[in-house]
């Protein structure tokens, strides 16, 4: 079980590199200490967006829903 928990732990190095890359892409220069502060917020945001994404359904798009799994079929339109 301990191994399983360890395997699920976020990759600190990966997340730090990811945040640093996103800041660089945005053209924002930050010292390493500030990047490190953003990493915990980044993780929390990723987790909450993932929960949100899982909770959403095609019906949450009120005007126009299209299920990409139905490739080749006519998109389903709802008023």
């Amino acid at each position, binding site marked *: 079980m301990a191994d399983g928990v360890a395997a699920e732990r976020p990759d600190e190095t990966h997340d730090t590199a990811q*945040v640093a890359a996103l800041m660089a892409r*945005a053209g924002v*220069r930050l010292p390493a200490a500030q990047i490190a*502060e*953003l990493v915990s917020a980044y993780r929390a*945001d990723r987790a909450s967006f993932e*929960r949100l994404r899982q*909770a959403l359904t095609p019906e*949450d798009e009120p005007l126009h829903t299209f299920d990409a799994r139905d490739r080749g079929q006519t998109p389903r339109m709802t008023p």
Partner: protein
Amino acid sequence: MSVRQPALTELTIAELAAGFAARELSPVEVTDAYLTRIEEHNAALHAYVLVTAERARADALAAEAAFGRGEVHGPLQGVPIALKDLYETAGIPTTGNSRAYLDYVPRADGAVVGKLAEAGAIFLGKLVMHELATGAPDLDGPFPPARNPWDLDRMPSGSSSGSASALAARLCAGSLGSDTGGSIRGPASWCNIVGLKPTYGLCSRRGVMPLSWSLDHVGPMARTVEDAAMLLQAIAGFDPQDDGSVDVAVPDYRAGLADLPRGLRVGVPWSYLESRADLGVEVLPTFRTAITALEGLGMTVVPIELPLVDLVEAIGNGILVSEAYTIHERGLRENPDRYGWPFASRVLRGATMSAADYLHATRGRGRFCRAMAEVMRGVDLIATPTSPAPAELFDDPTGVYYSRPSFTRLFNVTGQPSISVPSGFTAHGLPLGLMLSGRPFADRVVLQAAHAYEQIDRLYLRMPPGF
């Protein structure tokens, strides 16, 4: 035995307006009384970033002369108010408490500032806030954070921190705040004043520094619900230059304020509230007392379930941070040193979010709004505590500020009208607030219910010790 007369600065806006109209009070004397109090107490409270004393005295003289001629140009004529420093004011610096805007002097008044001026209000100055309306108190910001008059070691909440601090300490008669996730109601709760976030679209945001265009609201902060109604009356109305503005009839909010509609149904999310382990120990007992009081007023209290409540932080935060980053992207890239870290660390989260994240949040918002509309089919109001805890200490402000999920944010996401009214005090004398939220554009019902509740104990009469 003589009865102590209330000081001029203790009078409500309604009392001032009546006194001016009857020629029993002088706008000049009242303005001078406020300016004197500001001189006495602002050094301890840091509520004002700028006091426009000369202009205020000139405007008070003009108001007094107008009353002398029998002219009343508006319902707030002669009433001294102050503005959160994100309202653009012609010829007067508007900084947002940010080094990025320290030199910004607007050429025109914001829409609602113009409306207040038309109503006759006198502007005492500009009030401190969290930088650009988000983040946390920044001890290294251009202006020091406002202090809570009920305990100077504690925060007044934010981002409309100076507005709440000044009102509680009687350094202005009324104020305007802004509310993107609770920035009017939170400070109102922590400072024993009234704060109203009107329905989204009711009051123009033109000429107000934006944070998140789909969540930003402007609204009144005052000592009483009646005063809030008077301020709302002055600032409500359609503005085609604000994309979020809605062209609806504006009712008379003050007339009939005391006529509480019969049979109001108040929904309380008991199971959600009772499941929250992070509530301050005195928050729920005080709230239960408030609910009993609402029942005593003839309201029917019914249990409700808040839909998707576990997702609202993700929805609201995702939208707020994405939109705020979009607004401040260029400044953060080109002049990062002009922004404080409490602000930047929050808004830069937007740079880590994707278009898909934002769209998922907006889709979630749609579902949440539809679910809340269904809840509101069964009730007129939803009641919750305003804040999960009383005012917090300044120690490590960035650490605590967003540590607790918010009740206020729910109604920024839906746009529903929502008011905080004083509901009691902790054993240590810290204020607590009751939040009542209504159906879209039923701001009048929200005000009526809050007014009826407020009249039971009239907690607004309590002054912070030492002030």
